[in-house]
């Protein structure tokens, strides 16, 4: 059960090898979290993350595998996750996603489909599967990992940006639809975070380390904000970006 500060005891991470989500959970384990279910693609990396969480103090960590490029697995994955948790789940971090490669998806329909499957269709199906579960357990909290890349889509990664824009919109509507059932949905919009996923890419302004990002997100999770920006300054920056006229926006680098 979560407490008055919204600190969860049981956490499910969808995208269990996501570095940002992993660092968020590491901090939650220092608060009240004792049970963690990690769901992801790579069994070996999930197990590594699991042992780190056990070392940090989690008493029960379970791992389950799924492949997000096949959205039809979403329902079964959610069933498995609740089974593994052995009871109500207080917080779900929906952190499934790939950056993709714009140079490839520019001209490749198959790569484009795959990116949408992983970043949008699988998560959408997972939210649909979660909905009834959360309502019947009578409480819950979902944090959907979107990205500032979806706030205004850049030509350098527009396919990725579009998948996140779709996910962001979906999460907002999903949140509104379950609000009266006592379920809290938040959208996490990180900027550029130094992780394996972004290794080798040129850093954007306001780049943060993963620890910093996790700290901002953990703080945000216990607030009533519907959107968690990391770092917080990006809220103002993207308010401006979003409202820039197109001819100016196109002149910005990448």
């Amino acid at each position, binding site marked *: *059960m*979560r*407490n*008055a*500060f*919204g*600190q969860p*005891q049981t956490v499910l991470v969808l995208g269990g090898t996501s570095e940002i989500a992993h660092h968020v959970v590491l901090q939650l384990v220092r*608060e*009240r979290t004792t049970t963690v279910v990690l769901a992801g693609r790579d069994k070996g990396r999930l197990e590594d993350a699991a042992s780190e969480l056990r070392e940090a103090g989690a008493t029960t960590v379970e791992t389950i595998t799924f492949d997000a490029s096949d959205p039809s697995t979403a329902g079964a994955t959610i069933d498995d996750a609740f089974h593994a948790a052995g*009871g*109500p789940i207080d917080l779900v971090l929906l952190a499934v996603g790939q950056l993709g490669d714009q140079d490839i998806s520019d001209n490749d329909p198959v790569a484009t489909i795959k990116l949408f499957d992983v970043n949008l269709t699988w998560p959408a199906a997972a939210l649909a599967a979660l909905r009834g579960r959360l*309502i*019947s*357990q*009578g*409480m819950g909290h979902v944090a959907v990992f979107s990205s500032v890349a979806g706030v205004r889509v850049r030509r350098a990664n527009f396919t990725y940006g579009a998948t996140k824009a779709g996910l962001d919109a979906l999460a907002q509507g999903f949140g509104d639809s379950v609000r*009266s*059932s*006592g379920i809290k949905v938040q959208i996490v919009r990180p900027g550029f975070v130094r992780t394996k996923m972004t290794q080798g890419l040129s850093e954007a302004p306001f780049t943060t380390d993963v620890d910093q990002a996790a700290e901002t997100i953990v*703080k945000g999770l*216990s607030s*009533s904000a519907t959107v968690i920006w990391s770092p917080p300054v990006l809220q103002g920056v993207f308010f401006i970006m979003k409202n820039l006229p197109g001819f100016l926006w196109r002149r910005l680098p990448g």
Partner: protein
Amino acid sequence: MIDATEELLTGWGNTAPSLARVERPRTGSEVEEAFEDMTGPMIPRGLGRSYGDAAQCAGGTVVSNRGLWHLSPIDPETGLVTLGAGVSLEELLAVSIPAGYFVPVTPGTRQVTIGGAIGADIHGKNHHVDGSFTKHVTSMTLATPTGVVTLTQKSDPELFWATAGGMGLTGIITQATLQMIPITTSYVTVDTERFNDLDGVMNAMLSGDDDYRYSVAWVDCMTSGPKMGRGVLTRGDHAPRSALSGRSARKPLVAPSSSMLTVPFTPPSGLLNRLSITAFNEAWFRKAPQRRDGEIQSLGSFFHPLDGVSWWNRLHGHRGFLQYQFVVDDAHGEVIRQAIEVLSAASVPSFLAVLKRFGPADPGPLSFPLKGWTLALDMPIGPPQLADVLDQLDIMVAEAGGRIYLAKDSRLSPELLRAMYPDVQKLEEVRKRIDPKGVLASDLSRRLGLS
């Protein structure tokens, strides 16, 4: 058919809402019906005046006791009254005061039910003299998953005392017989003293509380330095007829009226912040006299000053608030000062804190009072440091052999619960006996890992 609806419930602090099916049985047999085929989880609820998640059950069933409403006349020979568990203290006092009886124990609000009063084994300003609520209960009827039992302190002491402060986890009390106390007026004679620091308040309580039936101090936790913990001590006893004059002498037994004002909606969080709370505390301290003896106050204004405004909890905004209440024994009185210091160093805003003395404990394994000092502080959710600061206080309290009050709790950890309530296994053993399938559970019991 039992009346039922789906409802999103919180405690008085408006935190951690959860959805449950609320059933409203009107008779003992409807309560038994509610247990039929029930796989759980399920928990009783009164007026929801506990601050946290004690009377909530996410995804399960919450049984409102408010339909269990019957009230037989008070026996003029013995002062005993038998009543439904859903009767509130306000409703009881409305009939008992004109008949010359007061409740043996009252909390700071009349808006609590008999079920909730036993479920939390509540205490009043007279704990140092009279003990807590359940001590004055001569018998009760308890519906459990394995059947209905009538309990006295002798018939099944384990189950009786596990139910006292058992937070609804041993079953649903449907009715109780309560020993009332005789009064000749609905007034209290009150002595008030103001002190410029915490030591002054505590010394006066140590040396003088035994001379008064009722005693409470309000302490300012937001002033640091030498004035830290300055406070106002009010102590009193039921006024005799001879103390009254004028209109009150002609009408000496008047029941308190229900509240006149309502906070109609929830304003934004942050209305009550460090600044506004400091200003409030200052004004309140200055208003108190240095010393005043023998003032006549009505029962309502002495015992339930906050009942004048209903739903005042909404003033804390949509993020809600919590109350931190702990007790330590006399050998660890310094923890009171340390706790105030920790909160003031962390700049946690808190309204006036309430300081009381407790007498000896009940045998209830989860009953809160211990002989010594108790401090209760209201604080809004919001300051980012608050969660950690309270975790730090928990450790201080546990190391001093003290504990925090579950009726106010919304954030304790399972490990520290066990450190603070070493007899918790006794409750768990009783639960194995009367609830082998583990039907009874609340958000609080699941958060605290109570089996």
